[in-house]
Each structure stands twice: as structure tokens, then as C-alpha cells.
């Protein structure tokens, strides 16, 4: 490439300086294993930009529905939304009930079956979505530490599991979606009670899928089977019994030890709006905490992944 302005070569020093600055930042952030020196900066930026994002999202929310007007009429959309909500509610109940039945049959779920549903939830709206160009699936919600939201809490909506809280600032929090490539969730098959690990594929929309590796190599999943969360120690990052998705396909390769299944998540990650963050029932929050039979997330008896 030749210098463009005659008699004036662009200075290399500026470029080199800025490149070095970028590399320094990357090194600082990537090399620190536990706490990054950039964490305070991140949370400061979050504290400033979080409210701005909240405000912007609130301002444009009425317009976000505009593209939808071109597709179909408002009445039809309302009907579809209502039916979808009803459907997902029933599906969630079904997914939960088969686990409950099994637990009762195994006689170990005498207590757990009564509280496998109904956690205390802090309601929040999704205000910003990380672009796919960044290759990580994260969203910002408009509830932060002031609302009682802290890192490693479960996030769900009325369809099922959404993800977990990565970072919480004062008035906003970053949520890692289930479909992110770095996300690993312990899941339990509703019919056979087999446990496995779910990994995201990094895609949202219609083609959002999760891969399931069952722990027991001899166990297989059946198509249409539902999955719920297995639950982690102390309910962090995932509480037990939240519906995740349905088995869409099962396959096995001679190379791999266990059977693999492809899971279609219940949640539509491309149109996330209202979500709930699972908190302890006695959490102090700047908004109303939704409690339905409020069980303590800490009391899940099973252990799982972090």
C-alpha cells in the first residue's frame, strides 16, 4: 500500500502505541485467573452505561413492536402470544411433573417434590443484547445489586431456563445465556432421571440448540423427552427443577463413549424480554419480589456443575 497523502506519511508511532495499548489490555485481562485488574473499570463503566441502556431500551420499547406490524395484525399476535404463554406454562408443568413422579417413586423426593417449583423471583427486563460479532451470547437486564441480584444466580422466564448472572452492577446485570458456547448446565431427563451436561452452540433464533452428554454411557435419551435442571450445590449458579428443553434428535458415534442428544430449548433467545432472577425468599430488593410458595434455592439436595 502506498502512502496516500503526498508529502505526509501517517505516523507509525501512533499505530504502534495503540496496538501496544490493546495488547497490554488483552494481556492484563486474559492472564489474571481469578480477579482481573479490569474488573473495577468494567463495573464502573457498567454503573454509568447500565442506566443509560435501561433508559434507551425503555424509550425504544414501543417501537420494537413496529417490525411485527408488518408481519401480521395485532390481534392475531396477541392471540398467538397468549396461546404460547399457556402452552409453555403447561409444558413447564408437564416437564416438572414427570420428575416429581419419579422422585416420589424413588422415595427420596418426599420433601423435594413439594418445592421443586415456586422460587422467589426478581422480575427484570432484557435491555441490551451482545452482538453475535462478539461470539458470546450475553444480555443485560435492568436489575442489579440494588434489586438483590448477584453473580451466579439462575435466570429464567415463563418458558424455562434462560441462563445465569455473570456480573451485577448497581442497576444492571450481565446474563450468560444457556446457548453460549461457554455455558455448561447440568440437566436431568424427565423420563429416566438420567443426568448429563448441556453445552450451548452459540446460536440464537430458530436454530438455537444445545448438546447433551449423558453421564451414564449406557443411557440413551428418547426424542421428545423433556429436560430440567439438575441443580447445583446451594442453588448457585443453577437451581433444580427448571425446564430447559426437549430432545430434538439423538445420535451416537463410535468415537464417543456416550450417546449424544440435541436439545431444543423452550426459551426463544432471540426475543427475550421479561425474565426472572431466582433469589432467596427474604431478599431485600428495590422492586416487588415474586413469591409463589417461596422455597429456598439453597435447599436443593443434589450437587452439580459450576
Amino acid at each position, binding site marked *: *500500500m502506498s*502512502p*496516500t*497523502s503526498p508529502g505526509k506519511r*501517517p*505516523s507509525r508511532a*501512533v*499505530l504502534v502505541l*495503540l*496496538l501496544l*495499548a*490493546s*495488547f*497490554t*489490555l*488483552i494481556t*492484563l*485481562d*486474559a492472564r489474571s485467573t481469578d480477579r482481573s485488574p*479490569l474488573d473495577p*473499570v*468494567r463495573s464502573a*463503566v*457498567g454503573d454509568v*452505561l*447500565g442506566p*443509560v*441502556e435501561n433508559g*434507551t*431500551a425503555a424509550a*425504544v420499547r414501543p417501537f*420494537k413492536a413496529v*417490525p411485527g406490524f408488518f408481519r401480521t395484525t395485532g390481534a392475531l399476535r396477541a392471540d398467538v402470544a397468549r396461546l404460547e404463554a399457556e402452552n409453555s406454562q403447561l409444558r413447564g408443568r408437564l416437564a416438572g411433573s414427570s420428575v416429581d413422579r419419579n422422585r416420589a417413586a424413588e422415595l427420596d423426593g418426599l420433601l423435594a417434590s413439594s418445592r421443586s417449583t415456586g422460587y422467589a423471583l426478581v422480575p427484570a427486563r432484557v*435491555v*441490551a*443484547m*451482545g*452482538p*453475535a*460479532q*462478539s*461470539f*458470546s*451470547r*450475553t*444480555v*443485560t437486564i435492568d436489575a442489579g445489586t440494588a434489586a438483590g441480584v448477584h453473580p451466579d444466580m439462575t435466570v429464567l422466564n415463563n418458558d424455562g431456563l434462560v441462563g445465569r448472572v*455473570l456480573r451485577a*452492577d448497581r442497576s*444492571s446485570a*450481565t446474563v*450468560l445465556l444457556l446457548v*453460549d*458456547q*461457554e455455558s455448561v448446565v447440568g440437566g436431568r431427563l424427565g423420563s429416566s432421571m438420567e443426568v448429563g451436561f448441556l453445552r450451548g*452452540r*452459540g*446460536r*440464537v*433464533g430458530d436454530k438455537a440448540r444445545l448438546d447433551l452428554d449423558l453421564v451414564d454411557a449406557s443411557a440413551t435419551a428418547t426424542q421428545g423427552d423433556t429436560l430440567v435442571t439438575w441443580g447445583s450445590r446451594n442453588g448457585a449458579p443453577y437451581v433444580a427443577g427448571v425446564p430447559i428443553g426437549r430432545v430434538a434428535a439423538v445420535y451416537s458415534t463410535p468415537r464417543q463413549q456416550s450417546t449424544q442428544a440435541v436439545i431444543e430449548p423452550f426459551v426463544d433467545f432471540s426475543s427475550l424480554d421479561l425474565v426472572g432472577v431466582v433469589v432467596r425468599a427474604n431478599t431485600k430488593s428495590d422492586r416487588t419480589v415474586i413469591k409463589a410458595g417461596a422455597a429456598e434455592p439453597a435447599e436443593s439436595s443434589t450437587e452439580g456443575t459450576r
Partner: protein
Amino acid sequence: MSVLRAVGLTTVILLAVILQVAVFSAVSFEGVVPNIALLVVVAAALVRGPEFAAATGFLGGLAIDLAPPADHVAGRWALALVVVGYLAGRVRHDAGTSAVAAVVTVAACSFVGTSVFALSGMLLGDPAIPVGSALRVIPIAVLYDVLVTPFVLPVLMRLFRRMRPHQVAY
């Protein structure tokens, strides 16, 4: 006056990043949104040249790296946009004059920027990006950036021309 200009530049960059995450997410395709911060850097390059654009790229990248939904290692978008600003600045005399050249510059910059970001991710393993998903996202990103260019780039270039300090023949 230069303080005012710095504040103006910062505002433009922050606005671009917020638009990108909070507003354009409604019209995302497969999760890809138009990279407005990249368009800001290209506009800066076409009007002001490589040094200014590289600095703008660094600030813009830093904003993307640190603004709330971001979870990748900080500095990766900064690196990508510094490269983009410098490259775009080097071709500015051809691209500053014709609309087609400007659109081609945006397409090239979008390709280079997203690729540098993806490559830095592959090197760091953060997250371990499969080549397939990078190859899927990059063309969509380029197409989307080109689509919004006619609406965004002229406005940004006019803004940068007005923010330019007065100087003799340029």
C-alpha cells in the same frame, strides 16, 4: 475547544455502542447487529486520516469491550478497531470522494474488524470460537454493515467534518 471536541467524540462513540446493544438488538439477524462503532471509526478515517481513526478505534473498541453485555477479554475489540481505523485511513483519498468506494471500504473494514476479533478469540481461546461459526457470522456482519452505511456514514462524516479543527488546505 479541544476539550469540547474530546467530549463530543466520546459522546458519539458511547452513543454508537449503546445503539448497537440496546436498540439494534431488535432488528438483529441471527444475533448479528450492525456494527455502528465500526462505522464511526470508518467515518473518522475518511475525514481525518489514520492516526485520528486509530485513536477513535481504540476508544470505540474499549467501549464495546467494557459496556455491560460484553463478556470477552477486554482489549480485543480495541485491537480490531485500531487496525480498522489505520487501514481505512490509508485509503481515505480514494474512498472519501465516491459513494461506491466508501461502501467498499466499509465492507472491507467490517470483514477485517470482525475477522481480527474472531482470530484474537481463537488465539486466546476466549471463547473457543469454532471456525464454522466465525465463517457464518462474518458475511452477515459485512452485509448488515453495508446495508446501514448509506443511512449512517454520511451523517457521521458530516459530524466529523464539523468537529475538525480549522486548518489550511487539506
